């Protein structure tokens, strides 16, 4: 690739991402008026967290001082990124193809489709971030979550968050690629995959709880290390209370997360290219199923 071609590619990639981000945000925020959107943004995460707290309270008979509680609470709060970001990227295929009927026009335009889809996922990241902040705030103010902002490792937090979000977006790209081929019901892909990952990523219980033969699945998923890092960065003592990943230092965890994210990222690009080629061969880019 010569310099001018590379410059055009970079320009197209950035343009695709930037405009798709704008479009994704318009779609995410414009479906109702701003007041209802604000109410929805607060009520939804708080309700989800409250359900979890009530269940925990009933099972442990109100033992909120156990380190398991912040472990579950934070794991659950950050897990909302998993579905929202993956779905934000992959749902764009279904939405554009089936609902807005614009996917073919995107494909005809001089844009980079993966960059476009990742841009559409940014709105998911922003709404999930709002949801996480509200959930943690509600946890600290009303639900017995002990969190001291002065003790938090903010550098580790933001670095881990950035790597994790990119990793989730690339996983979303795989689902988007599959959505190109699976005409019907592919809207459930992100929901199904995030549900399965919820079981194996130690979101609301340590991996040790799983049968020994299932634990390797959890160790192979980057989300497991990401959630651990998010918890450690905010409340370091939580991680030390459970033996699963206690042997790893923060830096080692970060290294594993980066390594697995790169592997998943590269694989996702190849999967996307293969599915994209297959979709063109089978004439699926603009095929609507009217479900």
């Amino acid at each position, binding site marked *: 690739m010569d310099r001018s071609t590379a410059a055009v590619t970079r320009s*197209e990639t950035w*343009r695709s991402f930037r*405009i798709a981000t704008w479009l994704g945000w318009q779609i995410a925020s414009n479906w109702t008026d701003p007041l209802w959107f604000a109410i929805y943004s607060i009520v939804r995460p708080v309700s989800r967290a409250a359900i979890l707290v009530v269940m925990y309270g009933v099972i442990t008979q109100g033992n909120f001082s156990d380190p398991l509680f912040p472990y579950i609470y934070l794991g659950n709060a950050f897990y909302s990124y998993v579905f929202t970001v993956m779905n934000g990227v992959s749902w764009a295929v279904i939405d554009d193809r089936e609902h807005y009927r*614009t996917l*073919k*026009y995107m*494909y005809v*335009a001089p844009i980079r489709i993966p960059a476009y889809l990742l841009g559409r996922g940014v709105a998911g990241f922003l709404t999930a971030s709002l949801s996480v902040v509200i959930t943690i705030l509600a946890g600290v103010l009303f639900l017995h979550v002990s969190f001291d902002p002065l003790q938090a490792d903010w550098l580790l937090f933001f670095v881990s968050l950035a790597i994790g979000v990119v990793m989730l977006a690339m996983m979303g790209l795989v689902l988007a690629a599959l959505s190109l081929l699976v005409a019907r019901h592919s809207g459930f892909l992100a929901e199904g995959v995030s549900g399965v990952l919820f079981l194996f990523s130690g979101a609301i219980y340590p991996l040790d709880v799983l049968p020994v033969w299932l634990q390797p699945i959890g160790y192979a998923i980057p989300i497991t290390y990401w959630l651990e890092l998010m918890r450690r960065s905010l409340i370091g003592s939580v991680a030390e209370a459970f033996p699963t990943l206690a042997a790893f230092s923060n830096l080692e965890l970060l290294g594993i997360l980066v390594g697995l994210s790169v592997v998943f990222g590269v694989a996702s690009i190849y999967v996307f290219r293969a599915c994209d080629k297959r979709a063109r061969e089978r004439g699926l880019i603009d095929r609507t199923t009217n479900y």
Partner: protein
Amino acid sequence: MPPLAIETEALGRIYKIRGSKKEKKIRKELVALADVNLQIETGELFGLLGPNGAGKTTLIKILTTLLAPTTGWARVAGHDVVDAAAKVRPLINMVSGGESSGYGLLTVRENLWMFSQFYGVPSKEAYRRIDELLKRVGIFDRRHTKSADLSTGLRQKMNIVRGFMTDPDVLFLDEPTLGLDVGASREVRALIREWVDDRRSDVRRTLLLTTHYMVEADELCDRVAIINQGRVLACDTPSALKQHLQKDAIFEVETSPLNGLTAQTIEDLPEVRTATATEHDGGATLNLILVEENALAHVINVFTQKNVRILKLSKREPTLEDVFVDLVGRSMADVEKGGESSEQ
């Protein structure tokens, strides 16, 4: 000499169609395009004329890089549509008629601005072009309306603006007036014509139009390819295509009910090239292409035997419909009614 805007050789596309759940393993093959060879000059307004299911949309999908061909190759603006798709896309745009695509939550202007940005048009220039084209198609006053609140026809106009707005080298319009009312169709045709006239001074632009409206093809296109069941049957200027039938005698006959008489019976008469019949309340209209006028006597004789009265008889100039009938043996409406659809 500028390169050809569009070139195809032995282009073909076969769809593999899965059976129902019970017949999952049985795959039918549907030939949507077969052995299409086209050479479209830069600056040409080229029409693809054929009934629904003829393969027009399949051809456009291949040329716009949306669909891979099964056989042969195609180049747009000198670039292969499969191997160099990324080089083709900045030079083209496409509009499909008869659909209401667009982001309903965005206003007309926002929708159009967004697409202009994907093509790298600077915002100021984009807004200038958008406003100019919206005025041209008569929806400037609706520019701040969310596209969800537009009628299907107005949404289609918005999409037509989307196609022209990026000022592509090659523009593909797939049935652009499908579903539009008479007035809106006229406005769209006028816009296409204006673009055509403008291109006279700028030979970069090429337009490929698919339609199943004969008048549209006749009125607008420099050259027309008649396509049926995936094959190009003829390709020439509308006048040259009609010229082939000039030596024939073409009659339109309005009659009383046909009393069991069929177009086939008439077509079997000596020196009758083709005959089509459309029955309607209280009678029928027949279009006859005769090798020579004397054959009319045979036809009238058959009418008399079957007690069919001739209400009106007129000789007329050939149209593209006659050319189609001459090539296919049936009218386009008959093909659409009876033919197996292969449009994808």
